[in-house]
């Protein structure tokens, strides 16, 4: 005979018939390299350092690459270094501003083989560097120290940028424990999107304007925003909508949906 309390609670939340988790995603979000954990092979000191770092690229495989400080310190642009997509033209500053008192720049440039690339850099700031993590660009993202980050037009199914006005959103995010430096999100949306709305699982959302891309041949607009500390971590982000002047969704990324060649149906995003 079923206990009536058990029956009542079974009715309240029925058992999950199937539960398919993703342990590797947890390790990735926690910045623990899946290949070394568990069991971990890196030193305790290295692991602790890795845990401080949170950088994620949704819909992409995330690989963080950091260059030796000495190799990039002399560059005006940290991303102009061996191993990263080579620019075919000089980088352009799309917009600049100040987050938490720190100057930042959103930069875009056309690259050889990877389409449009964009990046966030904090001019004048010498970031802390994690040595020995790797120096090659892979899977659409590179990071520099604890603050700077860049990405190119590479998303699942769209390894190389298609200059068409795709109804999709590509973005990158970088978090940091560097005192005073914010977590941020930057990305590209369809050219008709004047705003981007970023939503978290909690229901919170922020709306940011987009900026024209000063790079010929790429019909996209770019956005960049710091993420308020009160918002949930990046992995709890659920969607990014590109919104046109009439308030309609014209570009969509949804973390809970599998894209088709990198394109998410607009119906999965809200204005």
């Amino acid at each position, binding site marked *: 005979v079923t206990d009536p*309390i058990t029956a009542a*609670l079974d009715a309240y939340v029925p058992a999950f018939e199937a*539960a398919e988790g993703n*342990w590797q995603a*947890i390790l990735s979000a926690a910045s623990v390299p899946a290949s070394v954990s568990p069991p971990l092979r890196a030193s305790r000191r290295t692991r602790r350092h890795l845990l401080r770092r949170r950088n994620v690229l949704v819909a992409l495989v995330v690989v963080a690459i950091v260059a030796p400080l000495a190799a990039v310190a002399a560059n005006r642009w940290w991303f102009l270094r061996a191993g990263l997509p080579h620019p075919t033209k000089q980088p352009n500053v799309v917009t600049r501003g100040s987050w938490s008192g720190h100057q930042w720049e959103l930069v875009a440039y056309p690259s050889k083989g990877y389409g449009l690339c964009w990046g966030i850099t904090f001019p004048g700031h010498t970031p802390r560097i994690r040595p020995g993590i790797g120096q090659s660009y892979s899977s659409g993202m590179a990071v520099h120290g604890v603050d700077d980050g860049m990405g190119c037009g590479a998303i699942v199914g769209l390894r190389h940028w298609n200059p068409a006005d795709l109804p999709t959103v590509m973005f990158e995010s970088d978090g940091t424990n560097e005192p005073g430096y914010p977590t941020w999100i930057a990305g590209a949306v369809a050219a008709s999107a004047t705003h981007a709305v970023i939503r978290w699982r909690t229901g919170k959302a922020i709306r940011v304007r987009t900026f024209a891309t000063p790079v010929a041949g790429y019909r996209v607009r770019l956005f960049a925003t710091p993420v308020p500390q009160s918002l949930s971590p990046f992995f709890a982000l659920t969607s990014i909508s590109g919104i046109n002047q009439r308030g309609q969704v014209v570009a969509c990324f949804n973390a809970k949906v599998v894209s088709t060649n990198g394109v998410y149906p607009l119906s999965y995003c809200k204005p």
Partner: protein
Amino acid sequence: MEGGEDRDAQLAQLALTYRSRLPDLWRVAAAISGSREAAPDLVQEAFVRAVQRVESFRGEGPLEGWLWRIVVNVARNARREPLMAYLPEQPEVTPMATADRVVESEVAAALARLSERQRLVLFLRYYADLDYRTIAEALSISSGTVGATLTAARAALAQALELKEATS
């Protein structure tokens, strides 16, 4: 055991718990948060936190209890989160809103009349089949309090549902 090996072992245990208890973890998260759809994300978030903080686990109780405490806290916080704080002009259906919400029912109403501690003890006991010690660790109470709370919760729920409480 050297500290690094400690951590390796703890991570391995977290991974094992994740893989073997996922349906139960989701169920508890759904019950606490009020959202069946949000439960997988909440558990995922809880485990990320656990992995990041595993070195802070002091080994004074079962690791599983420490882990469940994180799951409970993440799910509780999700329920408390105000919706659309940054876009108040854009009301929408969210994971915490209507469509996927755990069915509002007499049971829900009856549970709402319990204290939070009573609900949490019930959920951990019935949905995850945790023993008193692990529940105690998860909720930072004593094992004796777990037993007393569970008895009181059963009685209160039975009364609210006008059930004839089975002898347990």
